[in-house]
């Protein structure tokens, strides 16, 4: 990496190199059988240069042949954005979240296969006709960041994560239930502990019940809370604020939500699958309170958005795949409440519990509109799940719901991945007066 920077500096003013190497071993099961085993090894080198005051960016997967990489970065610099920010300078104190577990690194693929088969066998023991599926994945990665201004940092991370569940098909009725888990450490992951939830939903989900169109109290599981919180995360993104797409550019310090809402982005969580020691631009990982007791207190930034808004970077300049860094959450955490979720559910006289929504990501996040088909949800009567609700649409305005309709957050939280948004740790959330549309 030093060599790339040295060579690049012969042709440009400043340079930054990001190196990532990872080995992923996904194991998948389909139709209750082992479906595939793979190992994917990849190295990636990303180079950002400043040439004549403009930023150029290129990537390669070849470690030894870096002249092409430098030439490409220099070539696109003439069309690149202005160098409107500063690469961080000098040594920095880096956090040291506990994100590497030798037990994950040494986890044998045979053991992953055995875990997956065990999960599916325990579902098939009660439901022989169910088509079990699972996708379990071990990932080991090394990241190194270095720039021409003397900043550098490196870390290694392991993750073991995945999902498992089953589909039961009867005629044209399909019931799909699944559970997710994941951590940086092997001991923290227990798919087995989630088997009972899956079995219970398969039992209750066999019976479809009617739901009339109307407004109801709705308990969202952490997975569904991801859809509710995604528009909030989109609106605190420094890039969206800078470009005027977020409605909150001038709302810092204002009470936007119920005091029960505290949203934190933390790159420095021990065992956090999204933790980072240093971001892709050399800014140390940090903990940022975005919403504190309902009040908007910060956005999340990369170097560019922070500079544009005259704010401090927050260590959120992260790369997705081979893309240039942009403000991206590390571990987004909606802090828990104090009630067990069972108590929240017991408080529902006539309502729903929604486990997963489908297509809710496809709306207009900046307007806060969340509307999705209830992929898996149950009617709740007097605090008990009584049957599955289908062919219904859940619609709320997330901003209004988190301000005016929030009845409670659970004590329990789960790690989940929000589609298109990233990793989050979320509680169950009980909302009042949610619109449910259905066939008449």
């Amino acid at each position: 990496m030093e060599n790339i920077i040295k060579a690049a500096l012969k042709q440009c003013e400043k340079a930054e190199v990001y190196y990532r190497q990872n080995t992923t071993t996904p194991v998948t099961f389909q139709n209750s059988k082992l479906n595939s085993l793979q190992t994917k090894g990849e190295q990636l080198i990303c180079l950002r240069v400043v040439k004549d005051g403009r930023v150029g960016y290129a990537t390669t997967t070849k470690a030894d042949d870096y002249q092409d990489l430098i030439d490409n970065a220099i070539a696109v610099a003439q069309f690149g954005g202005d160098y409107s920010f500063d690469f961080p300078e000098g040594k920095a104190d880096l956090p040291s979240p506990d994100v590497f577990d030798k037990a994950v690194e040494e986890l044998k693929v045979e053991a992953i296969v055995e875990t997956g088969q065990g999960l599916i066998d325990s579902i098939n023991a009660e439901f022989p006709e169910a088509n079990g599926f699972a996708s379990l994945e071990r990932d080991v990665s090394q990241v190194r960041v270095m720039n021409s201004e003397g900043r550098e940092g490196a870390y290694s991370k392991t993750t073991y994560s995945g999902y498992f569940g089953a589909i039961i098909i009867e005629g044209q009725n399909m019931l799909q239930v699944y559970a997710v888990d994941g951590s940086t450490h092997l001991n923290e992951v227990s798919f087995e502990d989630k088997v009972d939830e899956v079995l219970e939903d398969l039992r209750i989900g066999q019976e479809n019940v009617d739901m009339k169109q109307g407004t109801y109290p709705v308990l969202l599981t952490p997975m569904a809370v991801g859809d509710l919180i995604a528009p909030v995360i989109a609106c605190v993104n420094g890039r969206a604020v800078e470009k005027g797409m977020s409605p909150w550019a001038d709302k810092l310090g204002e009470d936007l939500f119920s005091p029960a809402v505290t949203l934190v982005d933390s790159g420095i969580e021990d065992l956090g699958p999204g933790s980072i020691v240093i971001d892709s631009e050399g800014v140390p990982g940090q903990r940022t309170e975005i919403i504190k007791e309902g009040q908007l207190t910060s956005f999340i930034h990369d170097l560019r958005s922070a500079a544009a808004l005259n704010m401090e970077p927050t260590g959120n300049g992260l790369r997705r795949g081979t893309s240039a860094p942009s403000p991206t959450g590390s571990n987004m955490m909606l802090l828990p409440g104090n009630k067990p979720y069972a108590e929240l559910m017991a408080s529902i006289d006539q309502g729903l519990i929604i486990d997963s929504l489908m297509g809710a990501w496809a709306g207009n996040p900046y307007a806060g509109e969340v509307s999705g088909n209830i992929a898996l949800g149950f009617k709740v009567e007097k605090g008990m799940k009584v049957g599955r609700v289908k062919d219904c649409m859940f619609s709320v305005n997330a901003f209004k719901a988190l301000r005016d309709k929030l009845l409670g957050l659970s004590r329990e939280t789960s790690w989940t991945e929000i589609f298109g948004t990233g990793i989050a740790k979320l509680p169950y959330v009980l909302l009042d007066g949610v619109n449910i549309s259905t066939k008449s």
Partner: protein
Amino acid sequence: MSFNKLEDLEAKVQQAITQARIIGETRKEKSTLAPAPVVRDEVRLALKTDPRQYALEEKKAIFEEYNKAILAYGGPITTSSIFYTDKFSTIHFANSEGTYIVQEKLDLSGSISAVATRDGLTQTGRTSFGSSDDFAVALGLESKVEEACQEAVDLLSAPVVKGGEYTVVVDPKLAGIFAHEAFGHLSEGDNVYENKQLQEVMTLGTRFGGDHLTIYDSGLDRGARGYLKYDDEGVATERTDLIRDGILVGRLHSRETAGKMGEEVTGNARALNYRFAPICRMRNTCIAPGEATFADMIKDIKLGLYVLDSYGGQTNGEMFTFSAGKAYMIRDGELAELVRDVNLTGNVFTTLKNIDMIGKDFTAFEAAGGCGKGQQGPLPTSEWAPHLRIQKVVIGGEG
């Protein structure tokens, strides 16, 4: 097994063998690959307008003009977002049966969005394009850019749609995405081949819609982003009919799924890139044209919706959902006011039967984005269709 450090070749081959052994020990039955002709071929690009004729600077200038037009539009238009990408690849495929194919591909696409903001509300208007052989689709979009600006502005004052059940007319863009999401995925062989219950649902010969309904998936349409001469198992693509005259007649296979089900290969095994194994994927999924005109479709609708374009959709096999780009109310047989935040949902099987009119205006529409499945996305696909009228579609929102 995939890797990009060639010096690891020996070790990776060993690892692949070990993995195959583990699978072999765990699974009782053998995988059978359906036979496919041995092919030796070189597929070179045949481009109408080659994007490489345009220097990076010229491309930038083209999109900068669109950008200027958006920012100069004024009023509540606050920002823009323009994205363009072109990708050339040369794919070498070899197998131990003797097939060796070198295939060049181009995939280009882009989207141009205008963003309007007023009183804390943000709305977007958009135009999008894509092609596998013609950069010209990115040129001359001035009037579409202006429409996108107007759309964003108009949506700011549009009311949120009232939730409930409606008769819906969908434009060709959304109809195509419906075919892809609602039926294409269900037709993918890997969903069906080891699943007895789903095989019963998807028994060839079962009726899924009226006589007027034909849905097919084709790799043969030059210029479409889903155009593909050979799939990633070296199998020549074709037009594969899924539903013909309302009856299920086919599905989308890889060699493994076709082999297992005793059916013919269709050329639908695709991999996002070398890092992924080929799995059953769509190419250009189409609804064949019918006989209705747009006027026929709306004239007897008392209260309904005309829904255009889509920001995305999803399916879980039995249910689907889409978010619309924009929608107009239909009142007493006429188009009425614009409404916003329209999300449609329904049951796949009942909705296919509820398609009661199919337009004669089959439209070849190409857009940015692509299809995602099992972490492999976005994969370039296309969806071509006419207008459709569908009874009893559930729309989200306040009642």
